[in-house]
C-alpha cells in the first residue's frame, strides 16, 4: 500500500477542515498538510448554510449577552469555559473572513450588517444574503489556495484511523478515482468530517453527512458526547427536506397553523407582535418551535399533505423587494420545489432533522482524549451547543475551533512526536481487508438501501422530537438487528473506479454506529432537556442529568454510556425564558 506522509492530516474540507488547514499553514509554513475530502471542498455541506454566523460586533451588544443566550439556549448543558472563549474569538474570526473577501452584506455606511436570529437577544448574525455558508466555504477554499503547504487530496474517502500505543498517527483512505487504498501517515490528525443528519430519513443534510468521522473516532476509542441531542429545524420544505432559513423569521416571517393563527403564542413564546421581537414568537429557540409543531399536530391544527403534516410560513407582508434582497434563495427554492412564491403565497413547512449537537468529545483546544487526534466543526462536541444549538452559532464554531485545532495540531507536532511502531502497517492492512471483504462476498440476503431505509425509519419513529422508553427501545432493537444483517451485505458493484456502491456501503457502516450511539444515549437520559424530550420524563433533572453523556464503542454490542460533569463558571442553571419576559431587542 502506498504511504503518503504529512505532518498534519485533516479529514474533511468543509468550513472546519479548510479553516484548520489555513491555521496550520499560518502557524508554521514548514509543516506539510494533507487535506482529505470525499468530495471537492466546495461540495461540502457548509455550502448549504443560509442564514448567517453570530458574533458580537455592534455597539449595543456585548459578549456577555452572547454568552448567556448560548448557555440558556443550550439548556445549561453547555461547557461555559468553551462558550466564553467562543463568544470572545468569533468576532475576530468573522473579521478575518471579511479580510479574506467574504462578501458579507453591508449597511449603507459600509460596515457589515447583522440580522436577528432565533434565541439571540440582540441582532448579531452576520450574513451574506441567504447564502452565508456558501460564501464562507468558497472564501475559505479560495483563500486556502494561497498557502502552498496545503496539499489537497480531493475525492479521497477516509476509512479508518491508525493508532498505536495510545496515539493517532494517520488514516487509511481510498483514492476514489482508482479505488486504491493509501496509508496516510502523520503526526497529528484533525477530523472535520461534518454531521450525521442522514441517519434520519427527513433531513436538511446533504448526501455527504453520514457521520463517517464520528464513527472512525468512536471505533478508535474516543467517546461520542451528547449524541441524543438532535436538532429539528422548524421550517423544512415537505418532501425534499430543503431548509428555509431561520432568517425568514428573523426578517419578520410568521408561522401559522391551519386556521391562520400564530400558534407559538400558545407555547410560552408570546405575545404576538406584528414586527419581530428577539427571543419571542417565531424568534424563539428551535427546540421549542419544533416541539410546538408536534403539539399543534396532536391538536389537529396542522395541514395534512401527502408529505406529512405542515404548517405555513407567511412572508407575504415582507414584500418583494425585501424578499429579493435578503432571501433570494428562499424564494427560488420555494417556487421551484413546492410551487409557492413567498411573495404572494403561504409556504408549507414542517420540522426537519438539521444538526447534531453531539459528536466527538474534545476539550477547548479541540483535542480529543486520544493523543494526536483533534476534531472540529459539526463532527465534534466541544459543548458550546449543549442540548440545543442556537441558529448561526455553528458557522462560528467551525471557524473558532477549526482555527484552534489547527494551531493545537501545529504546536503538538512541533513539540516532537515519537514515530509509530510496526503496528501501523498491520492496521492499514486490516482496514484494506475489511473493504476487500465486501468485494469478495457474493450472495447477500440484505441490500444496503433497504437496510438504510429500516435504520432511518427506526430513528425517526424512536428518536424524534418527542421520545419515550418504548419508542427508543424499539429503535435500539432495530439497530441491533440492522447491525447484525449489515455484516453480511455484499457489494453489487465490484469495480474500482468511482464505485459509489462501495462508498455508500462504508457510509452505512458509519451511520449504524452513530445511530446506535444516539439511540442508546437517548434511552439512558431519563429527563427532558433542550432537543431531548421524553414523554415519560417530562422535567429537566439537574440532580441526575446535568451531565454529558459519553458513549463508548463496544465492538460486540451496544455502547457503554457514562457521564461527564458540565463545566459551569458564571451561569447557574435556571429556567429558560422566552417570549415577553426575555426582554429581547425589537428587530423591526
Amino acid at each position, binding site marked *: 500500500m502506498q504511504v503518503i506522509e504529512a505532518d498534519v492530516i485533516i479529514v474533511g474540507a468543509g468550513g472546519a477542515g479548510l479553516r484548520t488547514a489555513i491555521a496550520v499553514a499560518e502557524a508554521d509554513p514548514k509543516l506539510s498538510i494533507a487535506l482529505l475530502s470525499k*468530495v*471537492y471542498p*466546495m*461540495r*461540502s*455541506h457548509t*455550502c*448549504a448554510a443560509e442564514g448567517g454566523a453570530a458574533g458580537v460586533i455592534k455597539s449595543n451588544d456585548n459578549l456577555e449577552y452572547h454568552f448567556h443566550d448560548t448557555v440558556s439556549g443550550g439548556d445549561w448543558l453547555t461547557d461555559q469555559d468553551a462558550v466564553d472563549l467562543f463568544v470572545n474569538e468569533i468576532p*475576530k474570526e468573522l*473579521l*478575518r473572513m*471579511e*479580510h*479574506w*473577501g467574504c*462578501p*458579507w*452584506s*453591508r*449597511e*449603507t*455606511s*459600509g*460596515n*457589515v450588517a447583522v440580522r436577528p436570529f432565533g434565541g439571540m437577544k440582540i441582532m448579531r448574525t452576520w450574513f451574506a444574503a441567504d*447564502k452565508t455558508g*456558501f*460564501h464562507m466555504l*468558497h472564501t475559505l477554499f*479560495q*483563500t486556502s*489556495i*494561497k498557502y502552498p503547504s496545503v496539499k489537497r487530496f*480531493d475525492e479521497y474517502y477516509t476509512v479508518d484511523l491508525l493508532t498505536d500505543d495510545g496515539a493517532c498517527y494517520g488514516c487509511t483512505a481510498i483514492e476514489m*478515482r482508482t479505488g486504491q487504498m493509501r496509508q496516510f501517515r502523520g503526526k497529528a490528525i484533525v477530523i472535520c468530517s461534518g454531521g450525521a443528519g442522514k441517519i434520519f430519513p427527513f433531513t436538511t443534510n*446533504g*448526501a*455527504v453527512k453520514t457521520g463517517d468521522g464520528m464513527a472512525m473516532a468512536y471505533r478508535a476509542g474516543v467517546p461520542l458526547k451528547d449524541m441524543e441531542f438532535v436538532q429539528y429545524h422548524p421550517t423544512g420544505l415537505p*418532501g*425534499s427536506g*430543503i*431548509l428555509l432559513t431561520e432568517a425568514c423569521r428573523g426578517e419578520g416571517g410568521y408561522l401559522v397553523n391551519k386556521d391562520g393563527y400564530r400558534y407559538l403564542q400558545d407555547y410560552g413564546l408570546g405575545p404576538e407582535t406584528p414586527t419581530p421581537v428577539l427571543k419571542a414568537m417565531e424568534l424563539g429557540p428551535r427546540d421549542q418551535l419544533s416541539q410546538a409543531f408536534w403539539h399543534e399536530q396532536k391538536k389537529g391544527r396542522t395541514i395534512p399533505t401527502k408529505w406529512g403534516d405542515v404548517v405555513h410560513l407567511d412572508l407575504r407582508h415582507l414584500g418583494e423587494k425585501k424578499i429579493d434582497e435578503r432571501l433570494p*434563495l428562499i424564494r427560488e*427554492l420555494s417556487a*421551484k*420545489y*413546492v410551487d409557492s412564491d413567498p411573495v404572494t403565497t403561504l409556504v408549507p413547512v414542517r420540522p426537519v432533522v438539521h444538526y447534531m449537537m453531539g459528536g466527538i468529545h474534545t476539550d477547548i483546544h479541540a483535542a480529543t482524549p486520544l493523543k494526536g487526534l483533534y476534531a472540529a466543526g459539526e463532527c465534534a462536541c466541544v459543548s458550546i451547543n449543549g442540548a440545543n444549538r442556537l441558529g448561526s452559532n455553528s458557522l462560528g464554531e467551525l471557524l473558532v475551533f477549526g482555527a484552534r485545532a489547527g494551531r493545537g495540531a501545529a504546536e503538538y507536532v512541533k513539540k516532537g512526536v515519537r514515530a509509530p511502531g510496526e503496528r501501523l502497517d498491520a492496521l492499514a492492512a486490516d482496514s484494506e481487508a475489511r473493504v476487500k471483504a465486501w468485494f469478495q462476498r457474493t450472495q447477500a440476503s440484505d*441490500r*444496503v*438501501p433497504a437496510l438504510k431505509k429500516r435504520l432511518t425509519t427506526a430513528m425517526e419513529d424512536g428518536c424524534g422530537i418527542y421520545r419515550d422508553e418504548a419508542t427508543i427501545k424499539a429503535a435500539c432493537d432495530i439497530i441491533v438487528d440492522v447491525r447484525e444483517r449489515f455484516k453480511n451485505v455484499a*457489494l*453489487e*458493484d465490484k*469495480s*474500482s*473506479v*468511482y*464505485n*459509489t*456502491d462501495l462508498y455508500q456501503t462504508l457510509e452505512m457502516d458509519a451511520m449504524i454506529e452513530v445511530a446506535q450511539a444516539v439511540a442508546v444515549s437517548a434511552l439512558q437520559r431519563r429527563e427532558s432537556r433542550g432537543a431531548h424530550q421524553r414523554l415519560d420524563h417530562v422535567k429537566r433533572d439537574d440532580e441526575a442529568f446535568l451531565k454529558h453523556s459519553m458513549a463508548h464503542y463496544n465492538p460486540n454490542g451496544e455502547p457503554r454510556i457514562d457521564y461527564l460533569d458540565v463545566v459551569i463558571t458564571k451561569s447557574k442553571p435556571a429556567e429558560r425564558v422566552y417570549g415577553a419576559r426575555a426582554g429581547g431587542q425589537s428587530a423591526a
Partner: protein
Amino acid sequence: MSERTIELEVLRYRPEQDQEPFFQTYKVPCEEEWVVLDALNYVKEEMDRTLSYRWSCHMFVCGSCGMMIDGEPKLACKAFLKDYPTGKIRVEPLSNFPIERDLVVVLDDFVEKLESVKPYIIPKEERTVEQGEYLQTPAQLKAFKQYTLCINCLCCYAVCPQYGLDESFVGPAALALAHRYNMDSRDLGRAARDDVVAAAEGIWHCSFVGACSQVCPKDVDPAGAIQQAKFAHGIDYLTSFLPGGKR
C-alpha cells in the same frame, strides 16, 4: 403511489469493462414533483447499484450534479421532471470533459484553472483584526457580488465553443472568478492575475457569444464578466500594439 413512469436513458461507461460508452435505459416510476436527481437516486437504490454520479446538497448550491440533460448542461437537482413532458429523458456526462466513469467527469483541468487565477484577496494594505473590517458600501459590494455566486458546476464549460476547441482556454467560470476579485474594493491583485487572465488563453480567447451565461443555473453571467474584463484591458491591449507599446 407513483404518478408517472419515465424512461431514463443514461450514458454508461466503466473504464474497466466497457470498450466505449453506451446508453442504458431505465424505466423509473416517479413522483410528479421529482427532479432528475431523484430519478437517478431511485435507479441507484432500487434498480442498479452500479450507476455512478455525483451529488450532495439537492438544493442547487453544491455544484456537484451538473450533467447533460436532453443535450443541455443542467443541475440534475434543478431539472424538474414536469418540464420533460414526453416522459423520455436522456442523461449524459458534461460535454467537453473526459469521462471518469458513467456521469462522473474528470475535473482536474478546471481545478487547476481555478487555482491559476489567484482567487483570493491580494490586499491593498495588510489589515489586522484589531483594525476592524474594510468598509465596503452596498454599491461596492454590488460591483462584484454576482460573480461570487458561481457554484463551480461547470455547465458553462460544457457549452463553451472555445473551450471545446482548445482546452488551454481558461474558460468562463475561472475568468469570472478572477474578475470577481479584480472588482472587489478590498483587492489590488489585478496585475498579479493578468499573466493568466490577459494572456492569449485568457479573456481574448472568448468569442463572446454568451452560451455560458445562458446555461448558468446561478445567473453568474460569466460572459458579461469577460466582456467587462476585456473592456478594462482594452485600452492597455490596444496601446500595446502602438510603437513603444509594451508588447
